[in-house]
């Protein structure tokens, strides 16, 4: 059976000058403070924080696995608290202190304790979920610097990892706690 189709435009707009294209989206001027640096940017009101971080600021360490708030790959710290950047508008994050995985290194550029623990304990495989775990655990250890294995397992229960089976991530949490304490003693 014959399919009727409308001819298709392949050039840049406007396709049919007699029909006005939709209004361009209104842009908001916002300032995002990320890892201690302020960035001025213009974004549509609907721009997700995850997209603003990744695509507008080039901080691609934050990942997007579901865009509906379940997997936790996009977790960043907002004023020190883990938050799903895929469930937040960039404009809403204005005025808050945002920390991404790029901001977790020690001031001298070496790996932070949670990052170091993941390397030591084989806490990652593909590494896609990892930034979300690293930010979540960093915040958690502020609250509970000496977790038991069970507490560590509970602490990461909001993040999905499809690769590691979690056992080594639990070990990483406990090892990170140790490294933090060693760091404090020095």
């Amino acid at each position, binding site marked *: *059976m014959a*399919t*009727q*189709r*409308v001819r*298709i*435009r*392949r050039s*840049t*707009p406007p*396709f049919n000058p007699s029909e006005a*294209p*939709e209004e*361009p989206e209104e842009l908001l001027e916002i300032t995002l403070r990320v890892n201690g640096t302020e960035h001025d940017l213009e974004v*549509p009101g*609907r*721009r997700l924080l995850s997209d603003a971080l990744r*695509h507008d600021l080039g901080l*691609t*360490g*934050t*990942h997007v*696995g*579901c*865009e*509906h708030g*379940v997997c936790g*790959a996009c977790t960043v710290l907002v004023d020190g608290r883990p938050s799903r950047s895929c469930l937040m508008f960039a404009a809403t994050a204005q005025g808050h202190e945002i920390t991404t*995985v*790029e901001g977790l290194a020690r001031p001298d550029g070496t*790996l932070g304790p949670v*990052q170091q623990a*993941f*390397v*030591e304990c*084989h806490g*990652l*495989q*593909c*590494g*896609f*979920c*990892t*930034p979300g775990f*690293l930010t979540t655990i960093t915040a958690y250890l502020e609250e509970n610097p000496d977790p038991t294995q069970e507490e560590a*397992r*509970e602490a*990461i229960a*909001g*993040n*999905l*990892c*499809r*690769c*590691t*089976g*979690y*056992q*080594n991530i*639990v070990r990483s949490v406990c090892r990170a706690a140790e490294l933090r304490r060693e760091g404090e003693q020095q």
Partner: protein
Amino acid sequence: MSTRSVGDRVQRKEDPRLVSGQGHYLDDLSQHALAAAFVRSPHAHARITDIDVSGALDVQGVVAVWTWEDLDQTHEAAGQPLPMLIPHPSITAPFTAYALAKETVHHVGEAVAMVVATDRYLAEDAAQRVRVEYEVLPAVVGVETARAAEHLVHEGAPGNVGAYFEQELGEPGPRIDAAPHVLELDLDIQRSASMPLEGKGVAARWDPELRMLRMHSSTQTATGLRAAVAAKLGLSLSQVEVIVPDVGGGFGVKINHPWPEEICVAAAALRMQTEIKWVEDRREHFISSAHERQMLQHVRVGFDDDGVILGMEADVWHDHGAYLPYGVIVPLNTVTHIPGPYRLKNFRVSFTSLYTTTVIVTPYRGAGRPQAAFLMERTMDAIAAELGLDRTAVRSANFIQPQEFPWDIGMLLQDGRLGIYDSGDFPASLDKLKALIGWEEFEAYREQARAEGRQVGIGLGCYVEGTGAGPYEGAHIEVETSGRINVATGLTTQGQGHQTVFAQIVADELGVPLDDVHVTTGDTRAMAYSVGTWGSRGAVMSGNAMLLTARKLKERALRIAADALEANPDDLEIVDGIISVRGAPEATIPLRTVAVLANPLRYAFDESAKAATQFGGKADETKPPIPEEDRPGLEETQFFSPVRTTFANGMHAAIVETDPQTAEITVLRYAVVHDCGPMLNPMIVEGQVYGGVAQGIGGALYEKMEYDADGQLLNASFMDFLMPFSTEVPHIETDHLETPSPLNPLGIKGAGEAGTIPVAAAIASAISDAEGFAVTRMPISPSDLWHLRASRRTDRTDRTDRTDQTDQTEES
């Protein structure tokens, strides 16, 4: 002194980059490319009567809207159906999809049109404004509906059958009929999916000056994609480069290629002379990528009083979805893996692979083998129940013995080669497993739990896995004059630690520090010959290619060094990158200097180059700068191509608790004994096992694609399709057995999928043990278990009236 690293728990070289946010996944690239979004069918089966794209074109920022005609106009082959990648004689009706639907759609989510815009948000806005009119046709969902064939998915596939395969060894029928005991079982496994945390994605850039297409894709095969795209777009192979960046998990779904989106994006980049990127969102992944696992199984088995199988027949019906682009690897793996670690000489097996109007099937970690293990292990448990024997005793009675290797199963595998088990020691593995889980002590524990009002059960599952299939993989190693060693294999990587284990092999063989070795994977510019990453083959294939290449390179380096040191190559060794005469430590030459000597130069661009110029080093005036049959540079390429597949094996055991009221199922303990031959890096092998078991737990207890009768996937989100979080995955205890394979120089067997294969079988065994009746359908949720209990209570009431009814699959 350089130390060997193969066999050690070496920390991964890729990790410092990945933990600091410096990974480069597909969506991190081509940030300024145009964005593609797809219009997808809302119907499971329908004829397209009209497509109106005018509304989409009004959206500010939209650059183009494509339908099938645009592909057809780009190149004739682009308008043809996608390739049938792995033809097999069993395939009677080979249907594959068009990259954009031509006249009919066969599942919800099938791509109908593509929108290209300056921004992803705008592309999605516009996609919603494309109006497609459909004439809805009847959906065909699930094995039973497909088998009934009241409606056909494709007119050319009578009975909805895409493939039928049957194989008979010995004389199963008569042996079963003559056996003292006969049982029949019906089993049922549901759909699940690989579900990597990073979805699929592709970016394509046409360079009009070089007339080259450069593609980045989140794929498991760079070379396969390159060849497929070149063929579809009418480009020469040399005009297409495919580079696979960091990949956020694959587990099988990313082995299929080319995906419709890869063709559409590449074709549009070519036609529009620009760069375009598409990144899949999660819902798209659910409804337009691939699933696996769904199968109905029927078994008839005859056995003696010790539980020794005398004859067996198995028939499986596989739901392969709307199209068959990756062939019948999944059901073929199932039927060829049913024998597992057991002597099965009188055996008939068949599969019927059926079309349904649902998402296609491609391999998902284990690729058909979890279904095989489920079938065989449920059968073993049923035999034990029938005879009142210990479940491990029945398995022991059937095991192939260590002295019986190599063991020929009498079937051709999915690679078209003989299935012959190379090595293993099943009795030893079972002993280790029983010790690890405390099999003998369990009855005492059960009593103790019962006294506390708790209900527990123990179960096990055994398997073998054909791993390391050919045809080949290669390696290229080059030594730079700085001492940096660049290593490449065409194989891709999705988190298995290839950059570490391949470097370990090369560093050991060459005698150089691990830090000097840098591994590139999945880049057709660095290695244009490769097959791909699937079927637990990475380490076996590329690992052995690395070894062979490093050996050859070392031989060459020592030959050149021997000339320079005026020594015999046989007396030389390389330690920490320094070549020296054994026993004469003062006569040395660094490997990097050999790289200088290997490449006589005209131009002195740096210090090492200066040494290699015609006035730099001492020269033998009687010989050409490069001897005959030699070539410049210190580099080598070698390929490894094995005669046949290796076989890894293992055994899992689980202890579960089932709540008497709520039917909640908790895995209390989980133990794994695993044999993949010598471990290159035990930390990574264990990591693969842990991850595999977690996916297996998902398949056993949670993961199920819920389709309604109209072919709508009801749980296409992470909210509704349950994958295990940390709280659902038990701690896993592991033990290893290392029986080397005689089939490759490293003696290794693959380990990537092993963790997943017997989990559903082991968990079903444990739940059955706790409940006192057989679990025959997976996954099993608390409500499934609750209903099972309820229906059994009704059954029992019925049975007092009708005593002729027997449940042959019942276990005590």
